[in-house]
């Protein structure tokens, strides 16, 4: 029983972080209809920002305040100058924006490798492995904090999309771009803002992950893959879906690790991915409707 509870807690905490990683991608997917395959790499850049600030004595949670605006700007620039111009170009491949994101991911990785080398970096904090126990179940402090911050960001995002003008415009663009344009929405600007928001959210995830994990230039790929799985699980463009997707993936990995063997961690995640595609195409969005 202790082991089961510990597994569920571990899965839940990890799932919160996954949700924050996935939510940016799902937003971009919903509005632009493309998968941002540089998503994990953007997170990696944010982690390096947290690392550099940490060497100057800044706590990784405060580096959120720097990394998020920086990545917002990076996202805006990428969308405005690299992705949007591609829409106007006729090619045999309609999805050349996706291919562009692959290239951007590689460039980000190699630029970071050029600056920081392939060395492993890590953010040292006094609380990196701090724990508290609740009835014999251990809670890792940074992961618990990350979980609640992730929930707060997700809630804020939800409120923003439902209640504000800009949020409504984003949802309108996601639902029907042509109709949105006809209603007077500047969809070009919306895509730019969305990419910025997505990048800022994944930057937050990076800063929260930094104290418990380690940092190296090639870290982006696996997290892009995780974000993709979460996006498909949750349903394209669904914030609530991304939370459910993230937590489902975290739980599945944890339970799989305990009861099947940890070497199957990735297999469990991908098996669920395939199952959702087969039996619940459209993801959790079909159930939650938001």
């Amino acid at each position, binding site marked *: 029983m*202790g082991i089961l509870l510990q597994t569920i807690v571990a899965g839940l905490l990890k799932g919160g972080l996954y949700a924050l990683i996935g939510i940016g991608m799902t937003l971009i997917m919903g509005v632009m209809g493309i998968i941002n395959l540089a998503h994990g790499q953007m997170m990696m850049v944010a982690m390096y920002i947290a690392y550099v600030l940490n060497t100057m004595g800044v706590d990784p949670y405060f580096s959120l305040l720097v990394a998020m605006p920086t990545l917002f700007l990076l996202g805006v620039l990428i969308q405005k100058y690299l992705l949007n111009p591609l829409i106007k170009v006729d090619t045999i491949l309609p999805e050349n924006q996706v291919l562009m994101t692959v290239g951007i991911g590689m460039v980000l990785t190699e630029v970071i490798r050029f600056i920081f080398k392939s060395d492993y970096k890590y953010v040292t904090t006094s609380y990196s492995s701090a724990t508290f126990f609740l009835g014999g179940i251990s809670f890792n402090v940074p992961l618990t904090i990350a979980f609640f911050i992730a929930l707060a960001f997700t809630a804020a995002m939800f409120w923003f999309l439902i209640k504000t003008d800009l949020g409504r415009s984003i949802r309108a663009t996601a639902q029907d771009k042509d109709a949105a344009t006809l209603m007077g929405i500047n969809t070009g600007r919306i895509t730019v803002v969305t990419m910025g928001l997505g990048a800022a959210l994944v930057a937050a995830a990076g800063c929260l992950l930094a104290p418990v994990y380690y940092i190296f230039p090639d870290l982006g790929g696996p997290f892009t893959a995780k974000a993709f799985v979460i996006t498909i699980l949750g349903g394209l463009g669904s914030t609530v879906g991304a939370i459910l997707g993230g937590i489902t993936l975290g739980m599945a990995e944890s339970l799989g690790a305990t009861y099947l063997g940890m070497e199957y961690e990735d297999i469990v995640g991908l098996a669920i991915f395939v199952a959702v595609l087969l039996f619940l195409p459209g993801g959790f969005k079909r159930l939650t409707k938001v």
Partner: protein
Amino acid sequence: MRAYPKGLLTVAVLLLAVVLCGGVMAAENVKVGIVLPLTGAQAKFGEIEKRSFEMAAEEINAAGGIKGSKLELLFEDDTGKPDVGRAATEKLISRDKVTVLTGGYSSAVTQAATAVAQQFKVPFLVTTGSADEITEKGYDYIFRINPTSSEYFDPFETLIQKAGGIKTMALLYENTQFGQSSAKDVEGAAKSAGIQVVVKEGYQAGAIDFKPILSKVKGAKPDIIYMVSYVMDAALLMAQCKELDINPKMFAGGGAGFTLPEFQQKAAAAADLVYSATLWSEDVPYKGAKEYFNKFKKKYNSETEYHGAEAYGSMYVVADALKRAKSFSPNDIRDALAATDMMTAFGPVKFISYGKKTQQNKLPNTFVVQWQKGKMETVWPEAFAKKKYIFPTPAWKDRK
């Protein structure tokens, strides 16, 4: 616009001529192909080895090179993936026409790369890739300087006997060829030493959270936790053992990640008193070992460890074989390598056959080190020990 392509053609021809001349001039160099993970998660190891290869080659060239010609190192990045390693080896052989190959870090990549070398009959001196199978296939062009991973556990056996009181073991390993191969051997060795393996779990490298398997380990209360892990997984495993308050009598690492300075820096207090198998430390009594360590530190301003020493030794073995070879034909180099009997900074090198293995180097000693107060100290075998080993490991809460 007609003239334009013609002009281009002239330029191309000129360029080609330059390249060809360059090629002729470069042919005087002896080309050594080296396959290493220079990017990807194992890049840290690749970097240490690359620097050591370069340092050794510079020294050899400065001392007159090989029969008047210089060593030219051609590095290819295997990114830690077997398919890339295979392609890299093919490129080195068929396009760059290297005389001899060396390098090879991860076992899975090395296995793929050596198969290519054997097929093209180009001699390959494996630097690290340590899974037993690699020298068990009867490949006559493949040599290995690194002892097999099954021998990493040997010094632990005697240490455990001496320390006493160890009856149960938890065995954690990364789910790769190196991890699986090591785990199988350690399990067998533990059984024959009368130690019961109570938990045996593989994990996926790069995981964030090891608590699921560590909870199981905690429940089983083993006397020793033996881990086969690369560097950052190793650091996270130890940090999370501390978090979950797991208290065996001994934490032991099976080579690879546990000897790197980054392990200690990331795991910090959790790294203290962790044991690791190692093939080399700067304190080993081989001629040139300490000099290599100091030179590396001076040149690159960072520390080296056993992987670097292997690379440094490999370069000297290759140079020695090239010097003795009747000609630079693959067959003559192979024969020269097979006749190797020399001392390197890494230890004595001689390729012998034993058990199912062929052309395999065997070191007289492998060592156990222990992190004590942030420093890695050689603690076993007793004859080489710099510090007394600390056993049993005190519980986390009893540490200051």
